[in-house]
């Protein structure tokens, strides 16, 4: 019933096509209520730019001059209210004073909105994030449509709210609830927003006009901040709570890596009771954060993500995915695709792995889809397929069977005659070159690689691997597919380890050499974490699976020889004994309930040295430069994005190449030389550094 689609949003009187404003529309209805619609030109979602704020200022002046009986603020975009600030404005900020002046001008406009002497009401559907939420907070009332989601994602950019949000949010909502939302960046739905008192009412689109009438006339029962808010905003309460928040924040990230949460806590602790002072301090704190390398690197990562989304393109044609092999990767890939609205058949010879894949899928959906019916529907879309019936109808087949050439070729021989014309045959191989896999195929041009990372639901990257005979159209469709399932594609040429595993393997193997040097595993992991990795190399190896590390290590060594650390013999023994890491409960760590037991029993004094960190980290940058030089990936920014989204590489460092550039190529090369002398040829700087600036 798409015919009726444009009748859904209640936007008040129809605005003139050629209004005086570019990104805003202003109308008045029969009751004298002004409807201010955010409708930013040329985009599908609203963001706040300096231009738009300036236009808003003009609208406010118009409203002050000719005061309406009430003001409705809402978005004319179907996608939602306002998705936040236009991040473009944050790029390359270096001057604290300039940022503070800029944010000060925006503050003045938002303050002016708040000071309007008429009942103002924000009607919110869809996403209402960051700056968007700060606009809504400056209104007297907020009406949420059922599908609304609220949140402050500034932390992802190394910032905290900067348009008065830290002040208005903690005043309206109990700070014990409000602060964690700003610190974690979690979004909440309309019901939760209502229970927090962030919105006054939750309703459906079809009742917006009547809800607005009641709001403007004062008949709407409003959410009021509780008495507790005042108590919690008292100085001594703030001091106590701030201490607890700091220790919570410390569990998530170190202050030297991520200063924003700590700055936010300071801000609230110092000024929480004093509105004016806190607004001013917010501006200053926001400006200080904006110029930190953390914020600038995270802003860079934000744009890397946008850039990689563009690589995906649009126009996905894949509706039915057939996954072969219900092991850890196959099962999780299938579950992810079904969770993203695709029909999925999951084939395996045995019911046991399928059953455990279904169990993991149900657990995942419980977390990401929440709604009971949404979980049910996703599970319905994920069909166990022991007879491999899905092959005939699938638009895309993803093979995820064990890493054995003959086995994979046998699978292909079985399915190729049944595949429908135009279908893509993809392999999730991480170690077998496509050039070897394609030899037995009737139509090698439809073979490509879709290399997902473990855990599929958390690592956004998918390497889209082509060989020299891959059909260009199918490659394009594969990229669009990756975009459609909300993952980020890295187009990469088929070469051992592609990009990510080739960069990551030296990191993990070096850590194993350190184990041989009798360095404690927790100290090795601590070294990586000190650099900013979310997980140390030892824990990561267990997470990935020691068998896979061994396979990939052997494969890479066979190609690159001594450029890689040698694989220790005990690793082979461990794998032979079935101690494979997380999936078997024992690897280098003992795993319980999906968590590694990292208690070391060592005194806290064994600090990792800078040399240890360099030994682990620099080979990654070295491999990335090599991949660029070899043309495996054609763009340095995309390399950084891929390593961040595929491995969790410390995002606030901006990526392994950006890190090298920031630290200085000279310095990197000389450090690598020094390591070569001390530890061996595997640290030899790649020839690519010559041309990398």
């Amino acid at each position, binding site marked *: 019933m798409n015919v009726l689609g444009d009748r859904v949003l209640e936007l008040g009187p129809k605005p003139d096509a050629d209004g005086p404003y570019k990104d805003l529309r202003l109308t008045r209805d029969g009751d004298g209520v002004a409807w201010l619609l955010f409708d930013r030109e040329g985009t599908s979602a609203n963001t706040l730019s300096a231009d738009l704020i300036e236009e808003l200022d003009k609208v406010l002046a118009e409203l002050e001059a000719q005061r309406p009986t009430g003001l409705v603020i809402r978005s004319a975009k179907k996608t939602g209210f306002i998705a936040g600030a236009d991040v473009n404005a944050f790029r390359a900020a270096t001057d604290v004073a300039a940022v503070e002046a800029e944010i000060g001008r925006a503050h003045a406009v938002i303050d002016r909105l708040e000071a309007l002497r008429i009942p103002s009401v924000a009607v919110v559907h869809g996403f209402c994030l960051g700056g968007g939420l700060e606009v809504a907070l400056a209104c007297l009332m907020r009406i949420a449509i059922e599908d609304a989601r609220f949140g402050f994602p500034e932390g992802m950019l190394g910032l905290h709210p900067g348009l008065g949000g830290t002040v208005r949010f903690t005043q309206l909502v109990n700070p014990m609830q409000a602060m964690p939302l700003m610190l974690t960046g979690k979004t909440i739905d309309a019901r939760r927003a209502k229970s927090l008192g962030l919105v006054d009412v939750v309703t459906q689109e079809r009742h917006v006009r009547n809800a607005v009438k009641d709001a403007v006339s004062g008949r709407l029962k409003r959410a009021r901040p509780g008495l507790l808010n005042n108590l919690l905003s008292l100085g001594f309460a703030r001091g106590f709570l701030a201490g607890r928040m700091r220790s919570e924040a410390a569990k998530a990230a170190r202050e030297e890596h991520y200063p924003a949460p700590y700055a936010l806590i300071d801000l609230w602790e110092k000024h929480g009771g004093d509105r004016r002072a806190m607004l001013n301090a917010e501006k200053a704190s926001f400006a200080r954060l904006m110029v930190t390398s953390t914020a600038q690197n995270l802003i860079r990562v934000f744009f890397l993500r946008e850039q990689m989304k563009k690589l995906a393109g649009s126009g996905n044609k894949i509706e039915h995915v057939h996954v072969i092999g219900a092991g850890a990767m196959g099962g999780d890939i299938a579950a992810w695709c079904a969770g993203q609205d695709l029909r999925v058949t999951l084939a395996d010879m045995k*019911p046991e792995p399928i059953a455990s894949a279904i169990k993991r899928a149900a657990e995942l959906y419980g977390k990401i889809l929440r709604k009971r019916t949404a979980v*049910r529907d996703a599970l*319905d*879309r994920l*069909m166990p397929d022991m007879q491999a019936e899905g092959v005939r*109808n699938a638009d895309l087949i993803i093979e995820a069977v064990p890493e054995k050439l003959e086995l994979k070729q046998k699978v292909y021989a079985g399915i190729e005659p049944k595949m429908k014309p135009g279908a893509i045959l993809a392999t999730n191989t991480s170690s077998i070159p496509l050039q070897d896999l394609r030899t037995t195929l009737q139509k090698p041009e439809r073979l490509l690689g879709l290399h997902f990372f473990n855990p599929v639901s958390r690592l956004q990257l998918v390497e889209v691997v082509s060989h020299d005979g891959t059909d260009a159209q199918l490659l394009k469709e594969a990229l669009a597919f990756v975009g459609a399932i909300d993952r980020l594609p890295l187009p990469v040429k088929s070469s051992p380890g592609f990009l990510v595993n080739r960069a990551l393997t030296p990191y993990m193997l070096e850590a194993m050499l350190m184990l041989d040097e009798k360095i404690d595993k927790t100290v090795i992991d601590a070294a990586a974490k000190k650099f900013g990795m979310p997980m140390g190399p030892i824990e990561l190896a267990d997470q990935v699976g020691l068998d896979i590390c061994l396979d990939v290590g052997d494969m890479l060594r066979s190609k690159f020889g001594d450029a890689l650390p040698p694989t220790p013999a005990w690793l082979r023994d461990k794998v032979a004994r079935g101690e494979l890491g997380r999936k078997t409960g024992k690897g280098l760590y003992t795993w319980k309930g999906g968590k590694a037991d990292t208690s070391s029993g060592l005194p806290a004094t064994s600090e990792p040295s800078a040399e240890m960190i360099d030994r682990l980290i620099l080979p990654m940058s070295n491999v990335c430069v090599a991949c660029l030089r070899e043309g495996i990936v054609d763009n340095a920014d995309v390399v950084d994005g891929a390593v961040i989204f595929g491995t969790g590489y410390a995002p606030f460092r901006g990526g392994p190449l950006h890190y090298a550039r920031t630290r200085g190529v000279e310095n990197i090369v000389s450090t690598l030389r020094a390591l070569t002398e001390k530890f061996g040829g595997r640290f030899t700087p790649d020839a690519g550094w010559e041309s990398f600036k």
Partner: protein
Amino acid sequence: MARPVFIVDGSRTPFLKARSGPGPFTPVDLAVQCGRPLLARQPFAPSAFDQVILGCVNVIADEMNPARVAALRLGMGEKMVAFTVQINCGSGMQSIDTGYRYIREGLSDLILAGGAEALSHAPLVWPQQGVRWFAGLAGAKGIGARVMAALKVKPSYFKPIIGLERGLTDPITELNMGQTAEVVGHLFGITRAQSDAYAAESHKRLAKAQSQGWLKDEVETAFARDGKFYDHDDGVRPDSTPESLAKLKPVFERPWGKVTAGNSSQITDGASWVILASEEAVAKHGLTPKAAILDSQWSALDPGIMGLGPVLSATELLKRNELTLGDIETWELNEAFATQVLGCLAAWNDEKFCKEILGLDGAAGELDQTRLNVDGGAISLGHPVGCSGNRIVLHLVNAMKRLGTRRGIATECIGGGQGGAMLIETV
């Protein structure tokens, strides 16, 4: 112009014995579990069906009109017309019969007809007096009235009744289904030993069919979200013998009754689908028909002897098609109770009954038990009431294909005093 109607494919879940508490699947969950692979293996899109008809007796509150819920969950498209039919134990066959008639009359070409039942999900029901008390309390205005209403409570109001127990009791005669089997057994002199021997044979036949892999193409493994999977009918007890069954106490009429838990059908969850197609649909999609539905018949009788329903409806089919008992090479007669199945066979062999009730010239004769329920039945598989009628048609087709027989009848007795029968011919 009656058009031919074909059964082209079908599948079912394993039948899962109700153990303690609700099973892993609701009726629609079960319908989806076996429907997905069935639809996936067809050469046409799920949206190509004209309609979906599903039999279900104990519809759960979250799944009103389970046929439509199942159709949508199976991805058959929002335009798919779907309705649920209910005639107690015949519901799963009634769905086929309804679809058969739509296609025969030329109104539809492709119909998905099924049956689904999760008896383990049957609700607990509050006594009527308790419900009235609660309604009074909820409706009372003012504190005084509310206190007065609350004070009228009695402990018995909170004693739940198992809904299933009421469902299995005939509302007219107040006889439990098991008691109707006792009546039939009495009228035709069926002994406890005969019943137990029949029940043991049912388990033996199912166990053999399972071990021979004869059910492989019929039963789809069901996967639950807790990581468990179910790949076979789990009520089977291959070690049952007439001797072991003889030790059980009667459950419905103690101490002298002949019907025990061992020689009755089991309380079970399950779902089953068949795909019905016209000649046009067969040609259009390049389908391979397995069998044709030749005729069907519903009959009714005294609810107190409902177990004889198959004798009435199947005989009517035979008469209309000028066939005799012996012309039917394979039979599925739903095993509600061993005593009732044997009662039916005895009735056909009873001259007086055949003359007076069935209007035959004499006794219809002996029904060869090697042709009857060749791979076991509800005693070993279980009897998810709204599903069983569908399963016996599906299995009849599969069994005839395997045995190479041509004509078969699937028939069942129906609580409330009815019988249903369907005449099938393999193609």
